[in-house]
């Protein structure tokens, strides 16, 4: 075996004999590449890229969902099921599968849209296929383009530079960005981090604070005006809690170095393949969990357990977080899927500010089940210990948001 120095020495000799480095002039591609990583010029570019990302995302999702899918689901699918499904509003199976109905002036009336119906065959299919699928598709398409062009690592380096300036070190930006698509692969992507502490920290932060593509899609559909606040709160939480965790968890968080590859033209073949892998992966994970979530929440309502839970938790929810006690249903659903939870929240009557708080709450109080399983698999048992600490942080954070509303005089 050679020592490290001997090996480099040998390589030096080999390369002297075989490699000639010719003159290399900077090309336009290189110069543009430099502009995208230097903070002064890179930040405006990043701002524009994110703008483009968001604009295309919402145009496309709105086109599919509002333009066509809502018409299909609310205009044909729901009425058709309400017609042919045996039973009626007073039959539990009908409530569970088609329409739970809602009380209007003391009378139980049928729902007229798939958000409010809560049935396995209505909301359970509308949420994943009607709202989330187009959103996830366009999200992955653009993410894949950014990846293959080579912008992703540059964005990571840029954010890293900026974070350093404000004293934050060792944040894993690539997994974080991936997390906006889906938290599950993002958790696996933390394997590129060097220390246990870093991996543990990033997994936790990701699972808690980073909203996934499915959740972004549903928020864009039901709370387009306020989702900006939700995202700001979540990012704020991501950094503040990251800062705190970094201080209290023992261990090191070394710098993260990223090699920046050259810009490239993406190939249609690879883009098509990757989008397909990811979208079908989404369908496999999401659809069963959404349906399971619908079932569990439905059963809890029918058996009266949900009302009991709502009343039991009511003091906490109304006094501490300042949200209506009915949000307990979505909170339960959020164990399964965040998108389902947000969809259910949208059917509950509340103020804009309560909506923001409750959407933030369903996002942070627990990672979705699929992510949780992945975190357990990757992070092991230490994670369970910290869960208690996490629950505590959620209380603080949720209360804090409520406090902000009180101070602003809107709660």
């Amino acid at each position, binding site marked *: 075996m050679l020592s490290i120095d001997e*090996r480099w020495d040998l390589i030096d000799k080999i390369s002297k*004999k075989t490699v000639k480095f010719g003159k290399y002039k900077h090309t336009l591609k290189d110069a543009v590449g430099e502009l995208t990583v230097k903070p002064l010029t890179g930040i405006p570019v990043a701002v524009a890229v994110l703008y483009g990302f968001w604009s295309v995302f919402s145009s496309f999702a709105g086109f599919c969902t509002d333009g066509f899918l809502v018409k299909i689901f609310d205009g044909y699918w729901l009425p058709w099921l309400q017609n042919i499904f045996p039973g009626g509003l007073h039959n539990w199976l009908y409530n569970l599968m088609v329409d739970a109905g809602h009380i209007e002036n003391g009378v139980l009336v049928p729902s007229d849209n798939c958000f409010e119906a809560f049935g396995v065959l209505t909301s359970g299919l509308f949420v994943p296929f009607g709202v989330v699928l187009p959103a996830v598709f366009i999200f992955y398409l653009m993410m894949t383009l950014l990846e293959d062009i080579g912008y*992703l690592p540059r964005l990571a380096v840029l954010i890293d530079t900026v974070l350093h300036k404000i004293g934050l070190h060792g944040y894993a930006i690539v997994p974080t960005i991936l997390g906006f698509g889906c938290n599950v692969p993002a958790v696996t992507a933390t394997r590129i981090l060097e220390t246990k502490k870093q991996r543990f920290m990033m997994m936790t932060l990701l699972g808690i604070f980073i909203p996934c593509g499915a959740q972004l899609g549903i928020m864009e559909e039901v709370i387009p005006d306020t989702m900006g606040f939700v995202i700001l709160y979540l990012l704020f939480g991501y950094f503040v809690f990251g800062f705190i965790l970094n201080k209290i968890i023992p261990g090191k968080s070394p710098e993260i170095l990223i090699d920046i590859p050259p810009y490239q033209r993406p190939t249609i073949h690879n883009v098509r393949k990757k989008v397909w892998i990811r979208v079908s992966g989404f369908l496999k994970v999401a659809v069963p969990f959404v349906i399971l979530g619908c079932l569990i929440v439905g059963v809890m309502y029918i058996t009266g357990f949900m009302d009991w839970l709502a009343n039991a938790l009511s003091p906490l929810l109304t006094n501490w977080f300042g949200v209506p006690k009915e949000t307990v249903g979505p909170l339960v659903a959020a164990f399964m899927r965040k998108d389902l939870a947000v969809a259910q929240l949208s059917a509950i009557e509340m103020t804009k500010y309560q909506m923001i708080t409750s959407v933030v709450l369903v996002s942070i109080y627990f990672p979705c089940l699929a992510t949780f399983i992945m975190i357990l698999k990757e992070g092991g048992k230490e994670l369970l210990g910290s869960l208690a600490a996490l629950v505590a942080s959620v209380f603080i954070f949720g209360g804090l948001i409520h406090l902000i509303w009180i101070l602003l005089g809107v709660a």
Partner: protein
Amino acid sequence: MKILLMGHPNVGKSVFFNRLTGSNVIESNYPGTTVDYTKGYMVLENRDIEVIDVPGTFSLEPKDKAEEVAVKMLEEEKDAIVVCVIDASKIERGLYLTLEIIEKGYPVIIALNMWDVAKDKNIEIDVKNLEKILEVPVIPTVAISGEGIKEVVSRIKEAKPVKIKNIIKNVGG
């Protein structure tokens, strides 16, 4: 017989793997895409051969969990043939890992991938001489277009273990 694809992150191992086996492993233009191994099969002279795509690693002393997977894979597959995928535009870094693998006694074949990038950067590599010094097949490839992949496949059987002493001798003489 098994084939292991080893190399630095983002040199094109996964593209290579997909080309060889027709699999659908994710390939992206940033380091750290692959963090777990994937097995696939290719047919060589009417035999099914297992090919393994592993996470990129800078050396055989793993720095993170993804690299651990790669190094562990190498240790587990004692009788594997290693295809070292090197970024031709950063050949020296790639050779480091290759030498480490050669020293461990694995039969090696080198794919000088990203040959197009190296050409763009006006880097000239004397492939014949490199082969003579290292005593293993060295093949320029462009994995995304498929250039050179056939040659790699056809020369896999030429891969053999090399004594590091020989390399030192070859380069000195």
